[in-house]
């Protein structure tokens, strides 16, 4: 029995030591909470987001912090689930963060948004594209990235740069959640504006292990324009099947495609994917801050930054900007400062970052990217073209 008590007390002591070690943050730091999936099927995306947030925090701290005080990122794993995100938000609120950031998925963002409203801590969305997120009349939620409807409107708008005279038919292949189906349905509702005829709407579950039958069907439909919308692994699988079978589509134009705009996609397929377009997030290639982020990310993490992760970096910059302008460093004044934000220096391909009543970044926009010689090239808007 004695032996067992000993073992238990050793384990207990170790846990306590570990906890105190982890919790021994400087009291004088300003804490910002980060809620992202760090385990589960979206761990890649979530981890990248946190990585880029850390780069932003380090940059601000190395430049002297905010009014002499350092920033501290408190990271919690949402596991990609709503309940995980809710737990994380609760812990962070108790931990005294002045702002929450997150969450990569719309379902988690909804939950955190509600918690933010209740605890009166501002929530800056890194990535979560659902339109309904900002339709609750909440005062504490702010979103920098383009929503589903912004991406869809960008698509209808930018299509003219891709469309040729002989382009008549279009088919969509999209993952069936809020994001993929949301964009596909929005565009198909407005397809009359484009003069194209829809010949196929193919949806699939993002966790699928094969897309063979979908590719067979697409080959038979042979649309002039193929619009794929999905996450990295499923869209990469789609492209693999298309390339393997030598199926040629006249034009491929992704919309917020998790694979097409990712540097890894180019590593995997090289010149085989030249000519593919994507309307997606992107950094502003002409900003010197962008160079810093790209370089630092590659140095610290050994891979190119995935495009969605720029919103991790920018979310911290937006909170820091609000902190500099806020009267005091309590969460409420940070919220008011966020609502009054007008940020001119940033890394996004858009005008100033300004939030409207609902918390939406009114100038948010995607860009049209084309893969040329295994590189991403911005085609439109021209002021961000990096040719």
């Amino acid at each position: 029995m004695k032996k067992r008590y000993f073992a238990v007390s050793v384990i207990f002591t170790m846990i306590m030591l570990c906890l105190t070690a982890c919790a021994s943050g400087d009291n004088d730091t300003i804490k910002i909470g980060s809620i992202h999936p760090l385990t589960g099927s979206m761990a890649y995306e979530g981890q990248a987001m946190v990585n880029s947030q850390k780069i932003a925090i380090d940059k601000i701290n190395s430049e002297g912090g905010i009014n002499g005080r350092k920033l501290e990122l408190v990271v919690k794993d949402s596991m990609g689930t709503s309940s995980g995100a809710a737990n994380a938000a609760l812990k962070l609120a108790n931990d005294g963060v002045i702002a929450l950031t997150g969450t990569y998925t719309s379902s988690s963002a909804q939950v955190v948004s509600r918690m933010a409203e209740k605890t009166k801590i501002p929530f800056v969305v890194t990535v979560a594209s659902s339109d309904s997120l900002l339709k609750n009349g909440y005062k504490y939620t702010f979103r920098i990235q383009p929503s589903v409807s912004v991406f869809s409107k960008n698509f209808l708008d930018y299509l003219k740069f891709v469309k040729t005279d002989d382009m008549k038919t279009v088919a969509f292949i999209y993952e069936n959640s809020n994001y993929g189906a949301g964009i596909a349905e929005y565009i198909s509702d407005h397809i009359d504006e484009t003069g194209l005829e829809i010949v196929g709407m193919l949806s699939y579950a993002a966790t699928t292990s094969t897309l063979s039958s979908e590719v067979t069907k697409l080959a038979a439909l042979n649309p002039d324009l193929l619009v794929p919308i999905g996450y990295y692994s499923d869209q990469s699988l789609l492209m693999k099947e298309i390339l393997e079978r030598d199926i040629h589509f006249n034009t491929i134009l992704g919309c917020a495609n998790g694979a097409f705009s990712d540097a890894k996609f180019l590593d995997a397929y090289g010149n085989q994917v030249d000519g593919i377009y994507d309307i997606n997030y992107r950094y502003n290639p002409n900003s010197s801050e962008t160079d810093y982020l790209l370089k630092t990310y590659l140095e610290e993490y050994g891979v190119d930054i995935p495009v969605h992760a720029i919103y991790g970096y920018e979310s911290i910059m937006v909170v820091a900007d609000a902190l500099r302008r806020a009267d005091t460093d309590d969460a409420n004044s940070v919220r008011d400062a966020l609502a009054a934000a007008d940020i001119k220096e940033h890394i996004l391909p858009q005008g100033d970052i300004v939030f409207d009543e609902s918390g939406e970044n009114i100038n948010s926009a995607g860009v049209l990217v084309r893969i040329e010689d295994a590189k991403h090239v911005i085609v439109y808007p021209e002021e961000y073209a990096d040719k």
Partner: protein
Amino acid sequence: MSIQFVQTLVDGIMMGGVYALAALGLSLIFGVLKITNFAHGAMMTIGMYSVYVISTYYGVNPYLALPVSILMLFLIGYLVQRFLIQRIEHAPAHNQLLLTLGLAYIFENLLLIIFTPNYKSLQVEGMEKAIKIGGLTIAPAKIIAFGVVIVVTVLVYLFLYKSSLGLKVRAAAQNDDGALLMGIRVKEIRGIAFGIGAVCTGIAGSLLVPVMSIYPTLGEVFQLKCFVIAVLGGMGNLWGALISGIIIGLVESVSGYALGGSWSELLIYAVFILILVFKPTGLFGRGNRRDK
């Protein structure tokens, strides 16, 4: 029948074969140990990463990495059984189940720590393009996968029914006390059975490396599918698992073609529920005899 439909059937059978092999391992472990191994998907992912690592770091063809992967999975399976599951063999079934579930999380998170959550993919030289036969196109990786699946299934069959060790495994599965009285070292036999089950799923995973991008939690996608297939074929039934795997592959691909991919998951689990309700021993199962 249009050529597209034939293509869909062929794709379904090919992919179904891989599912079958993964499910075979699960079925075998259940047949011998009466345990549902929830770490099965994670073991599959370990198989994938072992092939990925060997093939990228030593620059060898991923298929040549297969033997190392097999050895590793056998050891993992054997050790898990001997040192963890064996210790709680008399505990209630749900405790054993929770143990394997806990293992799944440990394996997944280890993979996350070691390999980061980044997607990894392999291009096998000379296999980038599909082979064209008639109007059909089939990826070489899938043809190889299907061939290996058949060979492995036959080998497992020969082992179980034609070797003396296999006889012991079956004896331990039917009546462990009786087997023990006959001088069979039941604990060791169970370790071996678990090891072989793990190897089956590991091979299935390895075969998928040239087909898809891998990431640490990919096994979750296959875990439930394997479970459906093993139940459909009758838990512990070797050929049942093979045929059910192909059936599920076909359901997935035909429904994907005819109705759209969102339907395939729905239909797979609808089939699963129907089987559970109306024929719980599976399509071919006498079930496992000991329970009667």
